[in-house]
């Protein structure tokens, strides 16, 4: 038996291999002596984490995924695709594939790249990755992939901040933190909560489902500690989510789209009863008087009373009053929007308004004072921030941008695409949008205008897709199959480890191997850059040597090797590799890190991991305490541009304060009624009051899934299909669940376990009905991110999908006119039994 270390996107692992085959995958087995757990003293108790790594569930299905029948085993060519003859783009998604050799596949891809670039220029090639299908700094998307495409030139696709839209496009204008894309700093919030919090309000936040993004279940025990300590828990969500199920507490279920009304009514109670932190509001915020006038109805004639919010949200008036009073009486952590706690309320029409109001509510309580924070309950353990190790969000953590390379190829193409608009751009150009997607450099950046095609650039003719399926994750996603069948895309490549919903739309398919079949290096849970200290969601920082455990299966190759072979055919192999193997790159990342000061590469390589323990003299610096106390920022938040300057006591807004009326929005969009300088409740453009509700009376919410990650692991690890919260088998097929209230089900003759069609004018999706008291009447809950896309008529957009891609139903409309965020949770549908 051989034993190897590795790290997934949701936990470090130890891999056991026998006769060249993986037989066991365990959470990383570390020497007990290597752990030096931190201790937090609070309320006479000592809290210390167990000496182990708690991975996400799907990580334990990694062996199943590696050997999945759904692996892409060989290079493939669509049967009716002839690069020298008929290309038949219209049959993409409809016909089968034939096995070809690697040489043939790579020759075709290289030849097509050359042909397209010489005919139309480098901008005619576009390439797109999904989020996080593998871990490791060499194999990661911004490494091997980005280095290759920067070298040959291409039109990059900008990501939208799909998990936390409203915080990015809204909250930044209220309290800064644009360098964290709208989410607040996480430092030492666990200690603060254990010591001081009396209540946690989880508002559209389900950390037992989304965990700390990459940090597995390490934070689950923190919530047990809080529960056992008697900290009150409130859950505001149209779905009785999994954290609510685990914690108990009070469940408050507003209609989707009305969270902002509920927030305003809470502010109304505090203003009328005089229970907000007046000194803090006076000293640390700007524009409160205007806000007060709006809340009281002085400015618009509508008082935002609990009764008014009750009519909008369906939450009883007395419940709103009770919540507001309790929140005023107890030191309360607001679990919303912080990293690892991004919920559906920020991915809906005008989600900016709710996110801004979340910040403002906590401002009225004294944000940053002990026990009063914005904390998703999944980040903020004590963390040794002194040991630097690069991560994918840091330029130094990417082969494409790091000093580990001698030569950094610069992409000559200025043209950009925007992920949500890719199909529109191909099918119906020109398209325009505002904002760069991830705007981490300034507030102004959100107002940069883009158009495609850019003057002087070509439309995209060659589409290179890598990892995952957007049909399962984007909005109005029938657009994607339609795009693929357009003759405007002359050539489509898909490079992936597994077949997903999108793979079958390619002309050439290249089989990549998984991270267990190649060499790499990486830190668990740490994205770096705009999510610095993300690994504070882990109880122990651990840097892992991702070892090649087995040879690449079937004819798969590592992404790095595939790009190397393509670079060779394009005459740029030396520029791409600089003579390095993947393990050479891994070692170079090690050498530039602080780890090299602690141990040699050989020691690290032999041991396979290093735990970066918290120093014995660790000094805690709770997030935003400095701001509440008027001190210079003392948190180790390297992205904060005012830190270590004479403005270090200020936030990242223009005024340096929390802005009830945003100076940046006043400057860049003073007349924007859909994202006004002061946040408002704006009824949804697809909500319970919309005209379409007469035909489609149910509101579909599609939050992130619990047992898969984006589309990853779904479909490729059959073990997961036996977890009823993930998929439910019926008649030999693993269906995607849709949860519906018993009254709504009865009115439609639907019983638990029936196959049902969810439909609207955009799509029809078949799911299995789960009849449950855990959703409010009028709401249907189904997780986004199915990896299966199986229209009954293969490849035909609009044909009912039985895979469960509920994203097909969601609106493609942007959150607001000037806000290029997705609004998947503003979605009206009807449901009926499926009899066919």
């Amino acid at each position: 038996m051989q034993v190897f270390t590795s790290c997934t996107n949701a936990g470090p692992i130890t891999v056991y291999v026998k006769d060249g085959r993986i037989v066991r995958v365990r959470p990383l087995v570390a020497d007990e002596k290597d752990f030096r757990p931190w201790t937090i003293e609070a309320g006479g108790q000592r809290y210390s984490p167990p000496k182990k790594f708690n991975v996400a569930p799907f990580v334990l299905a990694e062996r199943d995924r590696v050997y999945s029948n759904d692996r892409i085993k060989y290079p493939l060519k669509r049967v009716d695709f002839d690069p020298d003859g008929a290309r038949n783009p219209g049959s993409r998604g409809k016909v089968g594939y034939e096995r070809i050799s690697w040489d043939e596949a790579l020759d075709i891809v290289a030849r097509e790249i050359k042909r397209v670039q010489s005919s139309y220029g480098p901008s005619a090639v576009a390439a797109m990755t999904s989020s996080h299908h593998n871990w490791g700094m060499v194999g990661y998307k911004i490494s091997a992939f980005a280095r290759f495409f920067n070298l040959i030139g291409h039109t990059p696709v900008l990501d939208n901040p799909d998990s936390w839209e409203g915080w990015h496009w809204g909250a930044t204008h209220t309290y800064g933190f644009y360098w964290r894309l709208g989410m607040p700093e996480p430092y030492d919030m666990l200690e603060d909560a254990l010591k001081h919090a009396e209540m946690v309000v989880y508002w559209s936040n389900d950390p037992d489902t989304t965990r700390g993004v990459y940090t597995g279940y390490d934070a689950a025990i923190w919530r047990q500690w809080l529960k056992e300590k008697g900290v009150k828990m409130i859950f505001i969500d149209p779905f009785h989510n999994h954290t609510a199920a685990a914690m108990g507490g009070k469940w408050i279920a507003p209609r989707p789209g009305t969270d902002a009304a509920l927030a305003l009514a809470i502010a109304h109670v505090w203003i009328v009863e005089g229970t907000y932190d007046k000194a803090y509001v006076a000293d640390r915020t700007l524009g409160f008087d205007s806000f007060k006038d709006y809340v009281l109805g002085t400015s618009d004639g509508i008082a935002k009373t609990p009764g008014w919010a009750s009519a909008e949200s369906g939450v009883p008036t007395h419940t709103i009053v009770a919540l507001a009073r309790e929140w005023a009486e107890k030191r309360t952590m607001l679990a919303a929007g912080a990293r690892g706690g991004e919920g559906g309320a920020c991915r809906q029409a005008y989600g900016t308004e709710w996110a801004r109001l979340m910040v403002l509510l906590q401002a009225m309580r004294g944000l940053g004072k002990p026990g009063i924070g914005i904390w998703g309950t999944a980040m903020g353990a004590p963390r040794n921030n002194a040991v630097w190790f690069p991560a994918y969000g840091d330029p130094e953590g990417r082969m494409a941008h790091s000093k580990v390379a001698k030569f950094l190829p610069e992409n000559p193409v200025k043209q950009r695409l925007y992920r949500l608009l890719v199909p529109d751009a191909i099918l119906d150009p020109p398209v325009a949008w505002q904002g760069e997607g991830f705007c981490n450099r300034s507030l102004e950046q959100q107002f940069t205008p883009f158009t495609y095609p850019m003057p002087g650039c070509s439309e995209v003719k060659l589409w290179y897709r890598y990892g995952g399926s957007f049909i399962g994750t984007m909005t109005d996603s029938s657009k994607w199959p339609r795009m693929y069948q357009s003759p405007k895309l002359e050539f489509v490549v898909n490079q992936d480890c597994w077949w997903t919903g999108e793979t079958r739309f390619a002309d050439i398919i290249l089989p990549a191997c998984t991270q267990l079949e190649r060499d790499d290096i990486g830190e668990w849970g740490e994205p770096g850059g705009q999510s610095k200290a993300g690994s504070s969601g882990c109880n122990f920082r651990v840097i892992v040597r991702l070892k090649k455990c087995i040879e690449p299966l079937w004819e798969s190759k590592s992404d790095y090797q595939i790009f190397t072979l393509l670079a060779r055919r394009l005459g740029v192999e030396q520029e791409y590799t600089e003579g390095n193997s993947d393990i050479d790159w891994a070692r170079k990342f090690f050498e530039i890190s602080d780890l090299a000061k602690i141990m040699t590469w050989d020691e690290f390589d032999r041991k396979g991991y290093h735990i970066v323990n918290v120093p014995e003299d660790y000094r805690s610096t709770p997030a935003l305490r400095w701001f509440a106390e008027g001190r210079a920022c003392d948190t180790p938040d390297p992205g904060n541009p005012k830190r270590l300057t004479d403005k270090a006591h200020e936030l990242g807004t223009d005024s340096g304060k929390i802005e009830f009326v945003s100076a940046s929005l006043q400057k860049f969009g003073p007349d924007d009624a859909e994202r006004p300088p002061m946040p408002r409740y704006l009824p949804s453009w697809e909500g319970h009051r919309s005209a379409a509700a007469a035909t489609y009376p149910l509101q579909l919410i599609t939050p992130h899934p619990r047992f898969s990650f984006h589309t990853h692991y779904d479909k490729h690890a059959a073990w997961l299909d036996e977890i009823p919260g993930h998929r439910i088998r019926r008649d030999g097929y693993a269906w995607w669940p849709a949860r519906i209230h018993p009254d709504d089900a009865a009115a439609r003759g639907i019983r638990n376990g029936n196959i049902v069609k969810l439909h609207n004018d955009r799509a029809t999706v078949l799911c299995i009905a789960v009849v449950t008291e855990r959703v409010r009447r009028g709401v249907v809950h189904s997780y986004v991110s199915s990896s299966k896309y199986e229209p009954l008529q293969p490849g035909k957009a609009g044909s009912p999908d039985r895979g469960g891609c509920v994203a097909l139903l969601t609106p493609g409309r942007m959150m607001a006119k000037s806000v290029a965020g997705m609004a998947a949770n503003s979605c009206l549908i009807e449901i009926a039994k499926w009899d066919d």
Partner: protein
Amino acid sequence: MVRFGLVIDVSRCVGCYNCFLACRDEHVGNDYLPVSLAQPAADQRWIDIRERERGSFPKVKVDYVPVPCLHCTDAPCIDAATGGAIYRRDDGIVLIDPAKAVGQRDLVAACPYRVIFWNEAGNVPQKCTMCAHLLDDGWKEPRCVEVCPTQAIVFGDLADRHSDIAKLHAAKRVEDLHPEFETKPLVRYLELPKRFVVGEIVLADDVDRPAEGVGIVLDSAGKRLTTRTDNYGDFEFAGLTEQADYRLRIEHAGYRTREIAIPVGACLNLGTIVLEPI
């Protein structure tokens, strides 16, 4: 003498299925003879998460009860097996002998907890082994215990009074999953779900304010429980028995007294109870 057992704290289970998946990882496709044959790729749940939703909107509770083989001291399966096909080791672990149990399909039904499964291809019954092959190899705990993020499953030697599990037995009210089966399991539970009655009170002449502090009495066979509504106007009686019927009485000065009969049976959300002024 070592005597292995588990204590499963249901109040700590978050329903993450890590235990179920770790069991799959350990056993699917892997024989550990003579302890166990490989688990098939689907349909066997050596640790079964029994998920139950109780109450109604918006007062719902969800329980997850993980159920592995309970390794009973009086194991009905051992009695039902022929030719010594199921046996108890000295450490208390109950194992199915994959060779001797061939063809004994009726052993599946012999287990009242329904944790024995039939392997069609191997023509043999199978179940949780408490990872005996790993314990024999010096591992400190089974796979399901190792991956539990909340330490809801505690493994150890019941005979060692210094072990965590023995301390739990001494300190807390450890229960059997189905005491009526009288099988003396070595796998036992904390905080098994109990019947509850919940509701919300609103005052008819003051509907927009929470009715806090309203007194409620619950009577059953001479036993009386009392509580008051909380700051939301909510009340809850927990830890009730299913076999009893109850009488709930709401008395609040200035309002008509309400009495509600609660029959034997399931958990109940009484919904919003509106008190009318006198």
